[in-house]
């Protein structure tokens, strides 16, 4: 809108434009410039060119880390969606009191620090931890199981962290399905299983895909839980980037991987916007 139009529409418009634009200028200077600088670094350090990107095709360690990241991300997404769908469905079925308690647990666990949770999982899963002590004392196992500092530990911690991210959007989406459709299918002769498979499940598909994309977005860049529960053996891309900077000082490689990660996440967000309102999905 032009300045002339702003003055003609009343003096307060100028104040509101100032209020709208000053946070944007702040973010442009202190946020966009540093992030764009990372993209630039990936093409210029240690020397200009695409050498950093060539590592994607040549460097076996980089490929292993990316493969681990994708694999753990995919396993986490499938598990979180599967459990999340059943929980969201149960939330529709149960009474208001039970729903309030279950939702309260989900929302509260959303807010509990990832660090504290990783700490608790180490205490539970380590070789002298709670789970192993119980299994040993009951005689179910003879030597401690290795449940942590490996991929299993990372997946347990990640599913635990991502579950609320799956449950809440799924619940919102399932609640939006017209609750007269399944009884209508039943009245027309469908068995409960058929009514679910042919009517309810297809209608819930956009919510399912949307929740899956959200979980994938947060899983790919996850740092704290994999770093603590992976114990340096199962390394995902975020931890690998951090090691490149703090130990091997390979800024170019770190910037390249950060750029690839950012690109992947932005593509997923664009895809997500086809299934659900991104702003709604990100609201806690």
């Amino acid at each position, binding site marked *: 809108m032009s300045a002339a139009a702003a003055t003609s529409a009343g003096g307060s418009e100028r104040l509101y434009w100032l*209020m709208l634009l000053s946070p944007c200028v702040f973010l442009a200077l202190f946020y*966009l410039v540093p992030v764009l600088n990372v993209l630039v670094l990936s093409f210029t350090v240690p020397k200009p060119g695409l050498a950093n990107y060539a590592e994607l095709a040549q460097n076996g360690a980089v490929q292993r880390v990316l493969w681990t990241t994708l694999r753990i991300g995919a396993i986490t997404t499938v598990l979180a969606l599967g459990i999340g769908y059943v929980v969201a469905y149960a939330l529709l079925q149960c009474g208001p009191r039970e729903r309030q308690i279950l939702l309260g647990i989900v929302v509260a666990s959303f807010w509990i620090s990832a660090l504290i949770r990783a700490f608790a999982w180490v205490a539970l899963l380590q070789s002298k931890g709670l789970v192993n002590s119980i299994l040993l004392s009951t005689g179910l196992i003879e030597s401690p199981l290795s449940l942590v500092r490996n991929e299993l530990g990372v997946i347990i911690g990640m599913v635990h962290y991502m579950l609320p991210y799956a449950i809440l959007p799924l619940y919102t989406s399932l609640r939006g399905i017209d609750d007269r459709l*399944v009884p209508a299918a039943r009245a027309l002769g469908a068995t409960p299983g058929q009514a679910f498979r042919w009517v309810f499940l297809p209608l819930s598909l956009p919510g399912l895909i949307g929740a899956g994309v959200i979980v994938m977005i947060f899983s790919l860049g996850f740092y704290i839980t994999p770093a603590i529960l992976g114990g340096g053996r199962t390394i995902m891309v975020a931890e690998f980037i951090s090691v490149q*900077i703090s130990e091997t000082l390979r800024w170019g490689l770190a910037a390249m991987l950060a750029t690839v990660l950012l690109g992947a996440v932005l593509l997923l967000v664009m895809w997500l916007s086809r299934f659900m309102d991104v702003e709604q999905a990100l609201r806690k």
Partner: protein
Amino acid sequence: MAALGVPSTHNGISLNRIVAWLAASFLLLPILVIIPISLTPERYLSLPTNAISFRHYNSLVTDGRWTKSIVDSLVVGIGATVLATGLGVAFALGAWRLGAPLAKRLRLLLLAPIIVPPIVHAVAFYRAWATLGLLDTYLGLILIHAMKGLPFVVLTVAGTLANVDPRLEQAARSLGANPRQAMGWVVLPQIKAGIIAGAAFAFITSWDETIVALFVTSRAVTTLPRRIWEGLADNIDPAIAALGTVMIALTFAAVAISTLRSTAAKA
């Protein structure tokens, strides 16, 4: 699949409700172990066997390293909350009053700090803050945490503003209020609840932020997540469990209060 029956409000036992309660117990499991660990009389990670002790809670308030971290986290958190709330409320009000297509697109820019993976932030800020001389300073971390909290303030306040009619502001203006008075006396009081909720989100975001803090701070500024991280790296201190218990109790209290409030508002 037959167990997934018709959605209804019957209260019989169904397989999905059993799974739901199992999932809820899984979500609560870390909490259930952290509370007993925090009460151990030993120095190392263990469950109390014969006696319980509050020594680890005591060390949170007496051990200089913990108290410094608590103070640092509060300083950074309050600074970031004030900045994020000011900027976020300003942006949300501007977008609401002007309703321009530009405002819609700018909103996506403001949401970026939620979507961009934190490790990318860490690399970006580490580089930029070194150039600006902001590494290991309170201001440096406050600026970063303010940007990370900003999207939550904008989302929450914009949500509240959606129920406020923009013509109210114009009505106040035509009755003689100047732009500031119209905002302070007419608009802001109506969105007070949204602003408080947004500020709470911004504070929690800062209080909990780990990765960027690990990169841009070292000794001068040691927030709680950084302190816990260092503790996890060498010997695991049960004081972390005590701190976790306190934080979890506060989280549950906050969720319970907000749930009861929204239930009361609906009734």
